[in-house]
């Protein structure tokens, strides 16, 4: 009980501080109608898409705010609760937080042929839509890892860790799930998906795997050769890192697929423009631009031929609320730290 209280207390003290913490702001178009989009996506990645949209809608003056996912969640939740003017649209990779917002009646519904054509796992209540397709991948350094040694699945990775602990010691990287929302989401999904999760954590602990916070750092580490293998890295970041030494594997046992979630806040002022942006993002033209930006991965065409049954979308559904549950989070973090702490040890 005390621990949870502490956690909440820490969250409560942290969130207001983070509330005004957008990382960067960019502007597209110079029309008379202001339009505010808050997103967790790097502006540099999404820029071509936003430019095309601004071209199509010259009446809009688009402000693109780049946020950290937790700060964005706190801000959106506060806007929804207090009723202060929210963003006109929110696009976040922390889909569990978006599900929470929709569940708390903070979203505005929209129906259009493009939105209704989405599969059920990428749509909830016509208030939340998954606009991208990004797999969670295993990346490796092509120079330092032989073709035969490249693990094609989690089982292969486990076997490799057992067979050559010396080779991998200290050279496996993954997200620190306590620090990274995305890492937590992947770990949570892994924990639902298969029993390999526990074994994998133990394996990581045995070889003193490095749990770190950020995608860029992990990918750079693999490119430089500091890490041989990084587990559960978002594919889009790898595509944008333009590091030729880094190879990508879609695990054959199953590959988690994340769709960044798009939401129109209930109190948004430019709901029509937000709906236009959604329809645009789902249009073939924008999807092609997103694919070029690495945000949409045609999984069948990837270098590893992946069976359709191995593709596990993280569904936009209320069951994601479990991922946000404080008790559940505490339990998973405890399991994580216990395993890492006991196995590896600094």
């Amino acid at each position, binding site marked *: 009980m005390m621990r*949870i209280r502490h956690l909440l207390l820490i969250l409560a003290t942290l969130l207001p501080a983070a509330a005004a913490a957008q990382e960067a702001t960019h502007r597209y178009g110079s029309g008379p109608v202001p339009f505010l989009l808050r997103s967790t996506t790097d502006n540099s990645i999404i820029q071509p898409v936003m430019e095309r949209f601004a071209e199509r809608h010259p009446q809009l003056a688009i402000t693109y705010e780049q946020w950290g996912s937790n700060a964005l969640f706190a801000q959106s939740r506060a806007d929804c609760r207090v009723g202060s003017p929210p963003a006109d649209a929110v696009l976040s990779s922390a889909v569990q937080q978006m599900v929470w917002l929709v569940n708390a009646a903070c979203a505005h519904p929209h129906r259009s042929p493009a939105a209704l054509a989405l599969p059920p796992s990428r749509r909830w*209540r016509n208030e939340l839509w998954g606009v991208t397709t990004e797999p969670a991948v295993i990346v490796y350094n092509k120079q330092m890892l032989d073709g035969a040694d490249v693990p094609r699945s989690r089982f292969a990775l486990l076997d490799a860790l057992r067979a050559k602990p010396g080779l991998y010691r200290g050279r496996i990287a993954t997200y620190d799930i306590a620090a990274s929302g995305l890492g937590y989401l992947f770990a949570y999904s892994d924990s639902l998906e298969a029993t390999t999760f526990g074994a994998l954590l133990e394996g990581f602990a045995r070889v003193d795997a490095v749990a770190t916070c950020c995608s860029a750092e992990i990918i750079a580490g693999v490119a430089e050769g500091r890490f041989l293998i990084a587990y559960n890295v978002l594919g889009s970041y790898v595509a944008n890192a333009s590091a030729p030494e880094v190879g990508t594997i879609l695990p054959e046992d199953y590959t988690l697929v994340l769709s960044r979630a798009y939401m129109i806040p209930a109190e948004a002022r430019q709901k029509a423009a937000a709906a236009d942006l959604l329809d645009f993002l789902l249009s073939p033209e924008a999807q092609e631009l997103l694919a070029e930006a690495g945000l949409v991965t045609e999984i069948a065409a990837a270098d590893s031929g992946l069976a359709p049954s191995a593709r596990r979308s993280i569904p936009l559904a209320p069951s994601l609320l479990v991922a*946000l549950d404080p008790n559940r989070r505490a339990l998973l973090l405890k399991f994580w730290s216990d395993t890492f702490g006991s196995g590896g040890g600094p």
Partner: protein
Amino acid sequence: MAEPRPPLTLAARVLGAVLLILLLGGVLVSGSAWLNGQQAARQAYDRILLGAANDIAESVRIQAGTPIADLPVSAFQLLAQAPEDRIYYAVHGPGQVFITGVDPQTEIHAPEGGGGAGYFEALLNDEPARFVRVTRRFAERDFSGPVEVVVGQTLRARRAMTADLMLDALWPMAAAGLVLLVMAWVVIRTALRPLDAITADLARRDPYDLTPIATGRLPRELQVVLGAMNRFMGRLDGQVEAMRNLISDTAHQLRTPVAAIRVQAETAIAEPGGDASRRALDRLLARTRSLGTLLDQLLSRALVVHRTDSAPRLPVDLREVALEIMERDDHALLAPGTDLRLEIGEDPVMVRADAFSLGEAAGNLLGNALRHGTPPVAIGAERRGGDAILWVRDAGPGPVPAVMAQLGSRFNRSAGTQENSTGIGLSIVASVAAAFRGRVEMTQEEEGFRAALVLPAAQEGA
């Protein structure tokens, strides 16, 4: 001002009534289907809700003296049976201490009273939702007390299921209603076809055509109507016929006496003061007197024909009719000094008829007997079996057979007969007899010749 609507057709009225009944039935069935659907949806989703709440309650464990919920995804997969619905869950320890939940700032508490599983309804972020509360009691070494789990869900899936169930139930009903309507239409058309036929028949009919309409294969109700109409037309036909007869009789009967009167008058003028003139004046007087009688009879006959058609049938005692004739003393004028007797019994001789017409008939019978018969003359009434008889008898042999054969017809005034003949008198008797379903009987008896009006006797007391 709006023009008054034309009255609806019978078929439209019946069809309208059927439609109304079907609509009312439809509304009732819809209401019941909706209630049923709502109940089914409520039961189905309440079970899911309870299952999820129990799942969550089962997942609560005590860790270092603190209850902690290891939230099972299965509970949420259960709730995802209603994929479009928003979810609420919260776990509270003793004293409503928050353990975990979807949002610590949105607290929904069950209404007071009643432990264990209880459903209730409340608003979840301004949307109506249904909740269940499950309480699990712990009695561990380091923790004891109730842990309360509240799980709720908005109502979209329930409403969709209710609508689905209702539509599923209503589609066949709507189809059945349509079939019933078509059947009702066919039945109504079939039932009303005779009416249409009659309507068409009447529309086609010549306004002077008073012949009866065939009622052969018509429904009984229509037969009654048509029977009444046919009777009415028959009576009209009779009246028209009687009027025609009166005109033709009058013309026929009056032409000869009027011509004779003119001749006598001319004779009297041509030879004034002479013996011939005197004779002619005498004849003129006799002729005019006889013409008066004839006119009386013609009018009396017209009146009788009219009355027999229109006057109500009332119980009449034939003895009274005979008595009245006796007392009228007309006979003293016709044949002064004639012996006239009345022969009536103790019992009434009742018929249903018109007293005036009977009087006229009896008067004419008596007149004939006094004029042509042999005294003494008797008048009487008697009952014989089912017949009530009003008769007049004289002591003579009756008319010659040649005259007998012609009796009763309207035009029996041959050149040889006198103006004050029996002709019109007997035709009145015959008309009265026909009108009251009786007959005229002429018999030669021991006492003499008897002319009788035989009518069906009325039932006693009727």
